[in-house]
């Protein structure tokens, strides 16, 4: 009886060749994309997806061709925030057709593959027990396919909305070795900044990704009746000191604005209606900083 140890190499499957072919497909696709920018945060719920959505709108207003890949495989929200959930991707030529938002942003997300709001992202497996042994690999392969197998066409900038935590950024950096950089989103609380600080360390030490800068979201609140503006929680700007501590530029703060949350919920463009608001100005200023970073 021939045993496992008698099998030479991989028995003729050429697994390495198949993986190389996958990476070549990815490289071919990325050859048409000028910059890939990740939006990340160690902390959940600080507004990564909201920032990605409004940033994509702002950069489109600056006449860039923008794509958004939803790298949050299990908690995708980009399709909803950009108002494209009705689009179902179908294969067309060499790739799946992305959704296109009202402002012309191309979007690809796991959400577009799922039939219902509450459908969980589950993968076929003999059993879901011990899924920890393979699930990260499936998620990585899914992310690769979302980027490589979408018919993006030519893009100036691809934004990647990451899930909370610090483990997806190295995955993305493996897939996109010349990642232009990452925008770090933090909230106003000390807890948020502590968690974000860890993810900054991971990003620079493990993933070796250049950090474009820090955005502090939901830090200030403006009274809709009298216009008085004040900080929400922390008395000092945590985002700014976080940047200083890590030698990363502070890109600005986006105030809390309920209309921003509503626009995200309804998938409506925010800037189209509220560009002339403190939040609108802050978002445009952020887009300009990123533009400057990418194009000097």
């Amino acid at each position, binding site marked *: *009886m*021939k045993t496992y140890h008698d099998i030479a190499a991989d*028995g*003729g*499957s*050429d*697994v390495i060749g*198949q*993986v190389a*072919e*996958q990476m070549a*497909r990815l490289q071919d696709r990325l050859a048409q994309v000028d910059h890939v920018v990740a939006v990340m945060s160690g902390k959940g719920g600080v507004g990564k997806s909201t920032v990605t959505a409004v940033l994509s709108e702002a950069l489109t207003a600056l006449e860039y061709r923008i794509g958004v890949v939803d790298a949050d495989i299990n908690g995708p929200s980009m399709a909803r925030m950009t108002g494209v959930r009705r689009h*179902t*991707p*179908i*294969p067309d030529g*060499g*790739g*799946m057709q992305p959704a296109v938002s009202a402002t012309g942003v191309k979007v690809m997300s796991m959400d*577009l*593959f*799922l*039939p219902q709001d509450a*459908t*969980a*992202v*589950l*993968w*076929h*497996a*003999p*059993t879901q027990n*011990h899924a920890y*042994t*393979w*699930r990260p*690999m*499936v998620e990585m*392969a*899914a992310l*690769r*396919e*979302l980027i490589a*197998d*979408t018919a993006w066409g030519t893009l100036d900038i691809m934004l990647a909305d990451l899930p909370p935590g610090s483990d997806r950024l190295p995955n993305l950096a493996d897939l996109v070795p010349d990642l232009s950089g990452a925008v770090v989103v933090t909230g106003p609380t000390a807890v948020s900044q502590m968690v974000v600080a860890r993810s900054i360390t991971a990003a620079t030490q493990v993933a070796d990704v250049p950090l474009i800068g820090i955005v502090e979201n939901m830090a200030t609140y403006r009274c809709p009746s009298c216009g008085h503006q004040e900080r929400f929680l922390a008395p000092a700007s945590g985002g700014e000191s976080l940047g200083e501590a890590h030698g990363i530029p502070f890109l600005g703060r986006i105030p809390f604005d309920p209309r921003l949350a509503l626009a995200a919920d309804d998938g409506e463009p925010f800037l189209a209606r509220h560009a002339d608001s403190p939040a609108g100005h802050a978002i445009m200023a952020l887009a300009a900083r990123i533009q400057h970073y990418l194009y000097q």
Partner: protein
Amino acid sequence: MALRETHGPFEGTMSIVYHCLGCGYSMAMLTNRMETQMVRSLGVKIGGQTRAASPMEMLRSNLQGKREEIPAPGQAGAASKCPFTGVVVEAFNSGSMQWTDEAKARIERIPEFVRPMVQRSAEDYARQHGHDLVDGAVMDAMRGQAGRQDSGGH
């Protein structure tokens, strides 16, 4: 070498036994649940990719509960969720032979799930013994040999 039998897939484990009709030498390919799933996660095919991958093939074939409008990738079978089935299906399908009506009728009586395996073994046996068609005599002879092997013990 002829494909002799397969067990499973059962909860991700499968064994495929090949044997030599001349000397009875057997070789088994065993997969376990974790290996199968890890290979599946890579989006590669065991036995080699025989056609160009279609877009988002891993995602479309492995995602549970996806939108109905999204077509499954490639042809049925070719895009099986299991990375191993391609080699097995190929082994079952390679080179078919003429069958007499009597032999056909006999194979029809065999339970469906083992039929392809027996069919393939009969054809291999016939080929090995210089026959260009499968008839009742070939099937009898094959049964006799299988019986001898089984009683030979392991």
